[in-house]
C-alpha cells in the first residue's frame, strides 16, 4: 500500500508531461481541412516525405518545402506526371531452365516423379531408367536446386527493390507498392517463383494510386495470388474457398460484413480462374456456370461480378479508407475521420490517389498526434537511413533482405495472409537491438563480422545437419560426383542411424548438390558497404562546433526533437571525443567521433519513429 502514493504521483507527473504545451497543431487533430500555404514549411515537408516516401536529405526536403502544399502533394501522389530517371532493371541470375518454366510447389514432388518416369524431362532435367544408379537423383538434385535458387534470387530482388525505394523520384510509387504488398500479403514461401512476385509488384506500381476496382481485378488475375490463395485449385464441383474468403475478409470488407454463404458462392464464381503455365487463364470447363448469389447480387456470376458486388458495399470504402489511414497517418483513427474519408473515397469511385491527396493535405496529417507517431517498419528504417545519409546505392553489407528479415520484415515473405501487423509488434528487446546494430554496421562496416559459415554450408547444414554436411563436402572435394554412395553409410555420418538406407543418402546428397548448384547460379554482384562522409556533410552545412554538429545530425535524422538531457549528453560526448568545442573537419579522427555520436542518435527510441 505504501507504494500507491508514489505511483499516483508518477502517473500525475507523466500525464502533465504528456499533455505538453497547447499549440495550433494539437487542435488540428481530426481536422481534415487542408493546410494553408503559409502553414507550409520544411518541417512539414519532411513529415510528408517520410510518410509518402522514405524520407530524404535536407536538400530534397527544401525542394518540396519551396512548393505550394497542393503542388508538393500532387507531385508525390500523381507520380505518373512526374519524370523519373530510369531505374536499373533487375538483372536475373537465370535461375529457371526457361522463361515459361513452372516451378514445383510444396507437395508436388510425388506428381513430378511420376510424370518424369512416364514422360521424361521433369523439372527441366532428363531422367532415364538406369539400373546401376538411382536414376531419379538428378530430379531430386534439381528440386532442391530450384527451391534454394528461387529463395536466394528473391533476396536479390529485395535488394533491387530497396534500391528503387532509395533512388526513385516517385517515392510514393514504391511506398504504396509496399502498402499493397502488406495488404494483399503474398509469400514467396508458398509461391516459390520470384518472377510471379515481381509481376505482382509491377501491378502495384501500375495501378496502386488509381481506382481500386482496377487493382482488385488485377489481383484476382495475378499469378502469384492464384498460387498463394489456391485460386488455381478452385474448380467447378470442388471449390476452394481460400481466395473468396480473403478477398472479403482481408482485402475489402472485413469480418462481419459478409456471410459464410457469400464466401461459398463467391468461390464458385471464381472457379476456373487459374494458370496456364505461369499466366492467368480462365478455363471454360472448370468454371461453374450456374446461378449464384453473392452479397445480394444474383445471376450467373463470375469473379468480376463478385468484385462489383463487393464494391457496392459501403463497408468496403470504410475498410479501405481506415486501412490506408492507419498505415500512412496513425493507428488510432477516429470513427468520424474514417467515415468522412470513406464517404469521399466512395464518391470518387474508389480513387486511391484522390484519397491520399486529401489525407496528405489535411491538418490532421500534420497535427501533433500524427507527427512522429509511426513506428518505422524495418524496410522503412533501412531505406530512410540510407536516404538521409544521401547514399546512391543500397550497400551490399549489411545485406538488405536478411537484415530486414531478422528485424521482422523480409520482403516477399509476410508472416501470413494478414500481412505484417506492424506498429508496436515491430519492437521487442531483440529487434530493438538489431535496429541499433544495423545502424552500427552502416556506420562502422569494418565491424561487420565475417560470416561464420559459407552460404552453401548455411543452407545444407540447416537441412541435413553438420555431420553429414562435412562428409559430403569431403566426398565432393574428392571429386566423387556419382549419384550412388561409394563410401559405407557408416562413414557418411549415417552411423547413428541403424537402418540407414540409400534413400537417406540420396536425399541428403540432393540437398548438397542442389545447394551447390544454386550458389553457383546466383549472381553475387553486391556493392561494397556504404560510403559517405559525415565530415563533408557537416562542412557542406557550415557546421564548425560540437553543438551545431549534434543539432544538424538530430535535425537530419530524427523527426521528433531530442530531449534537452539527451541533447546535452550527445554534445558532451562529442566534446569529450574532440577535446573541445571546435570540430576539426579535416581530421580523419573526427569522422570516427561523428559516427560514434550518430550511432547514439540512431540508437535512440526517437529514431524508430517517423
Amino acid at each position, binding site marked *: 500500500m505504501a507504494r500507491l502514493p508514489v505511483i499516483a504521483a*508518477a502517473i500525475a507527473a*507523466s500525464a502533465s508531461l504528456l499533455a505538453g504545451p497547447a499549440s495550433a497543431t494539437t487542435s488540428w487533430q481530426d481536422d481534415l481541412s487542408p493546410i494553408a500555404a503559409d502553414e507550409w514549411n520544411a518541417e512539414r515537408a519532411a513529415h510528408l516525405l517520410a510518410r509518402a516516401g522514405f524520407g530524404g536529405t535536407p536538400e530534397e526536403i527544401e525542394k518540396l518545402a519551396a512548393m505550394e502544399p497542393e503542388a508538393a502533394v500532387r507531385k508525390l501522389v500523381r507520380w505518373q506526371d512526374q519524370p523519373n530517371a530510369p531505374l536499373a532493371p533487375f538483372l536475373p541470375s537465370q535461375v529457371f531452365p526457361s522463361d515459361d518454366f513452372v516451378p514445383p510447389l510444396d*507437395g508436388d514432388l510425388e506428381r513430378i516423379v511420376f510424370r518424369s518416369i512416364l514422360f521424361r524431362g521433369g523439372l527441366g532435367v532428363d531422367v532415364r531408367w538406369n539400373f546401376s544408379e538411382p536414376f531419379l537423383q538428378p530430379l531430386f538434385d534439381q528440386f532442391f536446386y530450384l527451391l534454394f535458387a528461387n529463395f536466394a534470387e528473391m533476396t536479390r530482388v529485395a535488394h533491387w527493390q530497396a534500391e528503387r525505394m532509395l533512388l526513385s523520384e516517385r517515392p510514393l510509387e514504391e511506398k504504396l507498392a509496399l502498402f499493397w504488398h502488406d495488404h494483399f500479403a503474398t509469400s514467396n514461401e508458398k509461391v516459390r517463383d520470384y518472377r510471379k512476385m515481381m509481376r505482382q509488384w509491377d501491378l502495384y506500381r501500375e495501378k496502386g494510386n488509381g481506382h481500386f476496382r482496377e487493382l482488385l481485378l488485377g489481383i484476382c488475375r495475378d499469378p502469384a495470388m492464384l498460387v498463394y490463395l489456391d485460386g488455381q485449385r478452385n474448380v467447378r464441383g470442388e471449390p476452394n474457398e481460400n481466395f473468396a474468403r480473403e478477398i472479403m475478409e482481408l482485402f475489402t470488407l472485413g469480418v462481419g460484413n459478409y456471410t459464410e454463404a457469400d464466401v461459398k458462392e463467391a468461390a464458385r464464381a471464381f472457379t476456373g480462374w487459374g494458370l496456364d503455365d505461369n499466366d492467368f487463364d480462365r478455363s471454360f470447363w472448370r468454371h461453374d456456370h450456374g446461378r449464384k448469389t453473392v452479397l445480394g447480387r444474383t445471376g450467373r456470376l463470375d469473379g468480376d461480378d463478385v468484385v462489383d458486388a463487393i464494391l457496392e458495399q459501403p463497408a468496403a470504402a470504410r475498410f479501405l479508407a481506415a486501412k490506408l489511414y492507419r498505415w500512412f497517418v496513425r493507428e488510432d483513427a477516429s470513427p468520424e475521420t474514417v467515415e468522412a474519408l470513406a464517404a469521399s473515397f466512395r464518391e470518387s469511385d474508389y480513387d486511391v490517389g484522390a484519397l491520399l491527396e486529401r489525407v496528405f493535405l489535411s491538418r490532421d496529417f500534420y497535427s501533433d498526434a500524427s507527427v512522429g507517431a509511426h*513506428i518505422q517498419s524495418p524496410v522503412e528504417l533501412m531505406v530512410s537511413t540510407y536516404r538521409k545519409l544521401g547514399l546512391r546505392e543500397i550497400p551490399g553489407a549489411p545485406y538488405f533482405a536478411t537484415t530486414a528479415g531478422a528485424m521482422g520484415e523480409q520482403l516477399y515473405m509476410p508472416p501470413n495472409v494478414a500481412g505484417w501487423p506492424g506498429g508496436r509488434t515491430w519492437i521487442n528487446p531483440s529487434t530493438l537491438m538489431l535496429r541499433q546494430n544495423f545502424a*552500427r*554496421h552502416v556506420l562502422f562496416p569494418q565491424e561487420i563480422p565475417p560470416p561464420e559459415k559459407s552460404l552453401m554450408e548455411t543452407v545444407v547444414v540447416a537441412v541435413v545437419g553438420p555431420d553429414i554436411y562435412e562428409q559430403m563436402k569431403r566426398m565432393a572435394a574428392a571429386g566423387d560426383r556419382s549419384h550412388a554412395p561409394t563410401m559405407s553409410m557408416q562413414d557418411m555420418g549415417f552411423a547413428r542411424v541403424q537402418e540407414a538406407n540409400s534413400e537417406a543418402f540420396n536425399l541428403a546428397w540432393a540437398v548438397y548438390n542442389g545447394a551447390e548448384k544454386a550458389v553457383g547460379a546466383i549472381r553475387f554482384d553486391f556493392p561494397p558497404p556504404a560510403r559517405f562522409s559525415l565530415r563533408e556533410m557537416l562542412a557542406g552545412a557550415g557546421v564548425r562546433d560540437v553543438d551545431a554538429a549534434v543539432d544538424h545530425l538530430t535535425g537530419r535524422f530524427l523527426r*521528433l526533437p531530442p530531449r534537452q538531457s539527451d541533447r546535452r549528453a550527445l*554534445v558532451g560526448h562529442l566534446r569529450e571525443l574532440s577535446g573541445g568545442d571546435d570540430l576539426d573537419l579535416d581530421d580523419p579522427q573526427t569522422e570516427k567521433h561523428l559516427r560514434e555520436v550518430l550511432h547514439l542518435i540512431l*540508437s535512440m527510441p526517437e529514431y524508430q519513429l517517423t
Partner: protein
Amino acid sequence: MTAVTRRDLIRAGLAGAVGAALPPLWRGTALAAESPGPVLVVVELAGGNDGLNTIVPYRDDAYHRARPEIGLASEALLRVDDHFGFHPRLLGLRNLWEQQRVAIVHGCGYPNPTRSHFSAMAWWHTAVPGAAEPFGWLGRMADARWPDGRPDTLVNVASQESLAVRSARHAPIVFRDPRAFARLGDPAAGEIYDAMTRSRPGGETTANLAFLRDIARTAERSAATVREATARYETPIRYGSDAATLAVDLRNVAALLDADFPARVYYTSMSGFDTHAAQPSSQQLLLMYLGDALEAFFADVDRIGRGDEVLVLVFTEFGRRVAENQSGGTDHGTATPIWLLGRGVRPGFHGAFPSLADLDAGDLRMTTDFRRVYASVLSEWMGVGDVAGLLRGSFQPLGLRAAS
C-alpha cells in the same frame, strides 16, 4: 554553457535509474505480490511429424497394410499398452511416461485442414484456422492474463519471432544464440547510451515513444540476464547430442528457470519433420533427439526444484498421410497427436484414436479439435478466464490436469 562530462551523465543516469524502478504507465503494478505460476514450454515440431509412426497403433492390421516399407514392426516398439507403442527411439518419452508425466491426446486437428506448411503452422499459431488473426494464441494469452503488460513474460527461442507469441501488449524476448543478444558498440558510448536510456521518462509526445522508451529501458537488462544466465549455467544433466538444436534450446530454458527469469512461456521449435522420402532414417534421429532432450529437461528442472511448475506442450502443424509413398516417406496429412508433459498432467491417452478404416480421401479424420487442448492449457494451467473469447469460439477443455 557548462560542459557535461561522461561521468556527470552516468551519475545522472544512476539517479534516473531510481525513476526507472517505478512501474511505467503501461505496466501492471501487482507483480511483486504475484505467486509463481505454471511455466509453459512449447516444443514445435516443424515440417509435419508423422504421428502414425510416433505413437503406433500396432494392433491395427490396417496400419501394417498401409505401410509395408516404413511401418514399424510390433516387436520393435516401446509398447505402453495393448494398443499403442512408441517409436523405438522414443526412450526418453517412454521413461517420462513411466513417471506418469505424459498425456497424449490422439487425433488432433480442425475442420477443413490445409496441406500447406505455411498456412497450417500459422493456424496452429493463432488458433483461428481459416482466418487471418494477427496475434498468436500465446500472445493473446499474455494479453488476457496481464492486460497492462508484464515484462519478460514471453520468451521465444528462435532467430525470428513466432506468430504464436505475437502480442498486442507484450514484447516477447527473442533469441537463438544468447551471446548474440546484445547491443554492439563502443563501450564509452555504451555508457552514455545506458545513462540516456535509464534517465527518467518524460516529454513523450506520443504513446509509441513512451512504449519505445520502456522497451529500451528493459531490453538491456533482459538481454544481460539471458546472456549471463545461459553462460554461467552448469548442469550435470546430459541433454543428448548438441546436433539437436532442441537440446541446446531446452538447456537454455532450464538456465533461465534456474535464474528465476519471470517468463511464463518459452517457445521453442525443432525442424526437419517433413519426411517425404527416406522417412525411417531421418525420423528416428529426430525422435531420439526429441525424447532425449525432453527427458533431460525434466531431470534438470527437477534438479533445480522447478519440476512442479513446468508444463511442456509438443505439437506439429499436421500429421502425414496414412499410406506411405513410393520414396519410403509420407506426404502431408491431417490429424496428429499432441503431447502434454509435466507433473500436473492426467497421464495416459486422451481422446479417440482416428480410425484407419474410415479415412477421408486417404487421411485420418480428426477426433479432437486442437483448440480443446489449448483450452485445457489456458484454463487448467494458465488461469485464463474467458477462454472462448481468446480462442474466438467455445472449446470444451479436456480435463488434462490431474486433481491435486
